[in-house]
Structure formats: C-alpha cells, structure tokens
C-alpha cells in the first residue's frame, strides 16, 4: 500500500477554509504528490484550470457566496478544462444533500463526505484512479467520438472479466444510446435491471424506450423510479422531457415542480419550469421559477439573458409591472461583457411596454433599438433574434420579423426547441399559418442545399461540393450542420487529392467557428481529431 504514490498527478484543492486547504495539501503531499495547488474560491479554481491542466480536483461543495462546487464542476466539464480521464471529487458536509445537487448534465466522479481521514482519502483516490485507468482507452475513444472503437473496447474488457465490469457495462449502455443503437441499449439495460433494479439502469431502460418510441413503457418505468427513490433527479428530467414530447405540458410542469422542490439550486430545471409555466399562463409559478433561475445563475456558466426576459414577462403576468421593467433594465448591468446586452434590454422593455398597453405606439422606441444595431450583416445571437422578431410582430413590422426568423432558422434548422419558439411567436401574434410556412420554407432550403453538397462530395466532386458549402457557410454562418459538412468535404478532398495549405487553413477556421457554436458536439470532435491527424501527417 505504501508503494503507491501520487507523484505523477497534478492536483487542485478548492476549499474556502485556509486550515482545511493546508490540511488537505499536507495529506496529499504525504502521498508523494509534488504538483499541488490550493485555491479559495470557485472563480480562482476556474481561472487556474484555464491556465494549467489538473489530473485530480478535490473541491468542496460549499465555497461561500459565489460559485459552488457543482458550478465549478459544470464549468470545468462544459468548457473542457478537464479530460474525461481526469478526476473531479466533490467534498460534501452531508450525504443527503448531494443526490439533489446533480445537474442535468454533469456528475462528479465521486463524493467524499466530511470529515474523512487520510487513510480514507488515500484509499478512495487509489480506487478511483484504478477505475479511471481501467476505462482510460474507452473514455478517450468516446471523447474522440470513435464510438465503434469505444464499444469494441467495452466488449473486450467485459469478456476479460474486468473487476470494473459494472462501470464498463454502464459506459457501454450509454455508448449504445449515443450511437443510436436503441434496441441493443434496451437489451443491455434490461439485463442489468434483471440482476438488480438500480436507478440509473432503470432510467437508462426508460430512455431506450423513449427513443424507440414506446412512450408508455418509458413513462411506467420512470414513475416507478420516482416512486421508489424520490431523489434520483435524472428520472424526473426524463419524465418531464417525455411529457413535453407527448405535448402534455401540464403534466411536465407537475414533474418539474416536484423536481425543483427537491433540487432548488438546479438552474436548468428552474428555467424549464419557468418556461413551461409561462406557456401555461401560470405566472406566479413561472415568476418564482425564473427568480430562482436568475439567483442561482449569477455564478453559473449556464446564465442566460432569456431567464431575465422570462422573469419580466412572468412579473408582468402577475401585475408587477414596475418590477418587470426593472428586471429588463437590469440585464445590461448583469451581462457587462455581452456586446448585445443593451440592445436586448431595450428591446425587452419595448416588448413589455407593448404588453402593458397594447394601444400605445411603441414603434418609435423599437425603431431606435433596431437602428442602434450594427448594420453589418452579422448573425445575431439566437436569443436576441427571437426577442426582436417577437417585438417587431407586436408592432406590425412583419417584414423585419420575417428577416430575423429566416436567419434564425437558417442558422439552426434542426434545433427543435428554437424552431418551436419561432413558431410560437407567430402563433401568439395570430399568424400561426404564416409562421409555419416561413419556418418550413427556410428549413427546406437549408436541407436541400445540404443534401446537394453531400451528394456532390459522395460523387467525388469535392471541389464543387466545397464551393457550395463555402457559399452556404457565408449565407448562414451560425449553421453547425453546414459548417461541419463543409469541413467534411474539405477533409475528404485533402484525403483524396492531397493536402494544400489554403484548405488546411480553411478547415482550421471552420473548426474554430464550429467550436464557438458547440464545442461539445460529437461530430465536431470527430472531425477535429481527423484534422489533427491530417495536420501531423502533413508536417511529417
């Protein structure tokens, strides 16, 4: 046991108490670690992780008034400051609370309840490092989006009778869902559930049913999980998603109400509850949810202007007109580094004023806002485009609204949530049919163009395909699908016709743009990997 050492690991300790920091540091140094950093706040932790890579992060959940441990985890994983093979360990004061901290997307690798002894810490670290080591290649393949390889490695480890069989089966099932092999995923989850009704496996089974289109099956299993353990939050999330899919928003709202009662600090759940309650015209529920989202969002990487817009609309619905205006005005202050926050705030005020007194003319005010916008044909952020379109429709400026929505749809033709919101804006203005037509036309246009480009590439006409995609990228700069397919065509051409510097540079630029839109997109990650190989081969 004493031969084991942390010598090769860089370790970050995050705790707001100086004494605990120095004690943890001593413990870690006693295990042979040489590269140990300790910081006081979540903000400092994130800043340091941007500069330096850590293999292990030991982070306390309670970090004083600003970012909490869960927010540090979310931001670190979301912004890829940690590799999937790195460890994030959450230190908590009591166990009961941790289960409800769980965000929708990210969980720490383990929880350690305070106080713990050095022996316990040593043992736990050793175990976790071993487990990560056993899954190392699988996790790396998954991160590269090489799902086939990852699945093969899982099968190999399982057939070799690995000690970590269960965690590997869990990863395998997730990979099957990720790669769209829903039937196989269902079978695997079912076989795990037959051994033991573990909540994660039941929820995975329900997810498989969900994707296979068996909504009733999914609903039954999820309700069973919730009835047996009221704190398994993922089951609530999927049940809410299911009810939204089935277009029973009232039921989804009930589930989200229960979920946010259990886990009040989850920004994403509060946001969902706020949105769905607003749709149902239940302003008081919506107001409370958005209020919580705004409060918990202050230090979160998920903070969004839309939460303030939602809050102000709900406040208006509750007859709190003045508060609503104040909320809208506060946006420029709350997002000081956002170049569009002023415009957003002013457009929102305009929107609210119109809602208060539909008879008043707010056109002039709106025109001032629109004029203040940069006249350059630069893609507007989605949130702002939606708000502007909505406000334009209120004021009868249908042409301008059409322009914003068209661009929005072109840039996000397969984002179901944005598409739904776009249609909703038109429906609210009494122009449902017009909205439907506008959205569908723009969608079809993108899909046709994309198919054409793909077909050209498949036929080996790489240059034509590239030309087409370059033009499409210029016309809809925010469309990730188009961007990724442009990269794909460029890569194919390089592969078949040799590498040239201009194309490499173009790929690099497009990859950078894709990363800005969604750095976690699996296809993006796969293409990035492909590009890196190509660039190193070229250099060699």
């Amino acid at each position, binding site marked *: 046991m004493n031969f084991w050492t942390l010598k090769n690991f860089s370790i970050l300790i995050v705790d707001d*108490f100086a*004494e*605990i920091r120095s*004690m943890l540091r*001593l*413990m870690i140094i*006693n295990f042979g670690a040489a590269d140990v950093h300790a910081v006081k706040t979540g903000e400092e932790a994130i800043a340091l992780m941007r500069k330096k890579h850590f293999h292990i992060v030991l982070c306390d959940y*309670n970090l004083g008034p600003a970012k909490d441990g869960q927010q540090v985890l979310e931001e670190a994983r979301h912004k890829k400051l940690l590799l999937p093979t790195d460890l994030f360990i959450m230190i908590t*004061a*009591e*166990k*009961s609370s941790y*289960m409800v901290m769980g965000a929708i997307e990210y969980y720490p690798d383990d929880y350690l*309840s*305070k*106080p*713990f*002894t*050095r*022996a*316990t810490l*040593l*043992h*736990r670290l050793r*175990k976790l490092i071993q487990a990560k080591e056993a899954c190392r290649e699988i996790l790396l393949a998954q991160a590269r989006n090489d799902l086939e390889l990852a699945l093969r490695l899982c099968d190999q480890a399982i057939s070799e*009778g690995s*000690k970590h*069989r*269960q965690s590997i089966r869990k990863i395998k099932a997730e990979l099957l869902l990720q790669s769209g092999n829903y039937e196989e995923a269902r079978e695997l989850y079912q076989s795990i559930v037959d051994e*033991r*009704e*573990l909540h994660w496996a039941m929820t995975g089974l329900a997810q498989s049913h969900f994707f296979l289109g068996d909504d009733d099956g999914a609903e039954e299993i999820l309700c069973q999980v919730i009835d047996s*353990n*009221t*704190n398994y939050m993922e089951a609530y999330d999927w049940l809410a998603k299911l009810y939204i899919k089935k277009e029973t928003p009232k039921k989804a709202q009930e589930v989200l109400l229960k979920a946010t009662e259990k886990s009040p600090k989850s920004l994403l759940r509060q946001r969902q509850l706020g949105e769905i309650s607003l749709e149902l015209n239940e302003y008081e529920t919506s107001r409370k949810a958005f209020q919580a989202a705004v*409060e918990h969002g202050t230090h979160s990487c998920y903070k969004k202007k839309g939460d303030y817009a939602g809050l102000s609309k709900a406040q208006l619905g509750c007859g709190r007109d003045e*508060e609503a205006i*104040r909320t809208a*005005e*506060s946006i420029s*202050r709350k997002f000081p580094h956002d170049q569009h926050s002023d415009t957003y705030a002013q457009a929102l005020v305009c929107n609210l004023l119109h809602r208060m007194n539909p008879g008043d003319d707010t056109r002039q005010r709106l025109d001032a806002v629109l004029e203040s916008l940069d006249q350059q044909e630069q893609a507007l952020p989605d949130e702002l485009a939606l708000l502007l379109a909505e406000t334009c429709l209120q004021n009868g400026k249908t042409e301008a609204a059409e322009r914003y929505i068209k661009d929005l749809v072109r840039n996000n033709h397969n984002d179901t949530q944005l598409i739904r919101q776009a249609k909703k804006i038109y429906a609210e203005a009494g122009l449902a049919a017009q909205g439907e037509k506008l959205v569908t036309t723009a969608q079809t246009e993108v899909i046709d163009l994309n198919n054409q480009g793909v077909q050209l590439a498949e036929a080996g006409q790489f240059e034509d395909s590239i030309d087409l995609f370059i033009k499409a990228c210029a016309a809809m700069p925010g469309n990730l699908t188009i961007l990724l397919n442009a990269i794909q065509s460029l890569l194919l051409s390089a592969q078949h016709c040799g590498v040239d510097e201009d194309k490499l540079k173009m790929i690099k630029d497009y990859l950078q743009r894709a990363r800005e839109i969604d750095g976690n997109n699996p296809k993006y990650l796969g293409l990035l990997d492909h590009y890196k190989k190509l660039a190193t081969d070229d250099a060699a």
Partner: protein
Amino acid sequence: MKNSLSNHYAAATAQDGMAELDLETLLASSLHDIKNALGLLLGNLEQLQTDGTGATSAGNSNLSRLRLGGEQIRMNLVQLLALYRLKSDDQLIDIQEHNLLDFIEECIAPFEEAFAEKGISLELDCDETAHWYFDADLIGVVIANVLHNLYQQAKTRVCFKIETGANGLVLSISDDGEGFPAGMLERTEIRQGKIQFHSGSTGLGLYFSQMIARAHKNRGTAGWIQLDNQGIEHGARFVLYLP
C-alpha cells in the same frame, strides 16, 4: 434613478434570504462547522503522528488512541445525521453496486494502525471480484461501529468473511475475545431487532445497525443483523445480511 431602484431591489432579496434561516438551516450549518472542526482535529493528529519520527512508540500509541476517539465522534455524527434522515424524510438511501474488497479495505483503513499497535491482526476472506448492492456510507458506519467494539474486545485476531450468492450478501466479522456476555445475547429484543435505547454506546450502535440493515430492501426482502458467540474460539461474531 435607475441605480436607486436597483439597490432597493437587491436589498429586498437579501431580506428574503434572512427570513429563510430556520432552525433546520441553523442546525445544518452548525453541524457543518462541527464536522470541519473535527476534520481539522483528526487531520492534525494524523500529521503529528507522521511528523513524530523521534517520538516514542508509547507516544505514538497514545496518538492512535486519540485518533480512534476522534473517529468515534465522527461516526456518531454520521450516525446522528443518518438517523435523522431515515426518521424524518423519505428513504434517502443510495444503493449502488460496490466491489466488496475495495469497500472493506476502505472501512478498515482508519483502524489499521491502531489495531497493529495493539497486536491485533486483521484477516480478510473475500473474493477479489465479489460485489454487492448497498449504501456504502451507511454500511460503512455499521462496520466502523463493529470495529470500535472489536478494538476493545479482540485479543489477537479479527476475521472478515464475505460471501455472496443469488439471495444476498453475508458478511461476518469475528474476533478471538471473550464473546458477548450471555445476558446480552439472551435479550430477545436484540434477536428480534426490537432494540431499545440503553445507557452506553452499544445500544445506540446496534439500534442504528439494525435500522440501516432493514432499510436495505430488495424484491420484498429486508436486511438484518445478528450477534452470537461463534467467532474465533467462541469469540464474538457479528453477522450482516443484505438482500
């Protein structure tokens, strides 16, 4: 004007926050402080023991005893919280699959030095790949409880035996001490699990262990604990069954 309004707004939010500080929050935050203080105490003791290269072995064994004392307080705190949780709220039990060898080793780790200094050997009979389903924090406290008792009672040996089958996990911990007093084993409430509060720590520890075992349910069967004198050479034996 805009500024003064926003200040007013911020103040209102802060006041709402004040009103929410109820008894439960206060208790929770003092427990948090106690745990921090205790963590520091234990950490400093450990550090003292590591640094004290020149210290006498007698001094070191005093430190070990101090540490075990701290461990006991820690265990009691965890126990208290778990009892509160199981009594007051829904069943907040987190059943996951665990490798048994890893789990037992982690349970033993804080005791190893103290047992070694007393000349008690810890033996472990467990298959490397064996696993079972339970709440590791709660069962960890049950086992720490047993180990505290064994530290007082065992002469030279403590033996862990772990078996898993289709119906469950049987974990037995035996020592070569004097065994439980006959009177204690005869108390039917222990056999039937209807343990009442007694003066002294054993009662609460057993009550807790029984409660935790029972909270582990699977397809209609609940866990249990059992005490007897079928340990090493009629020493004490503690048996935990989990379905």
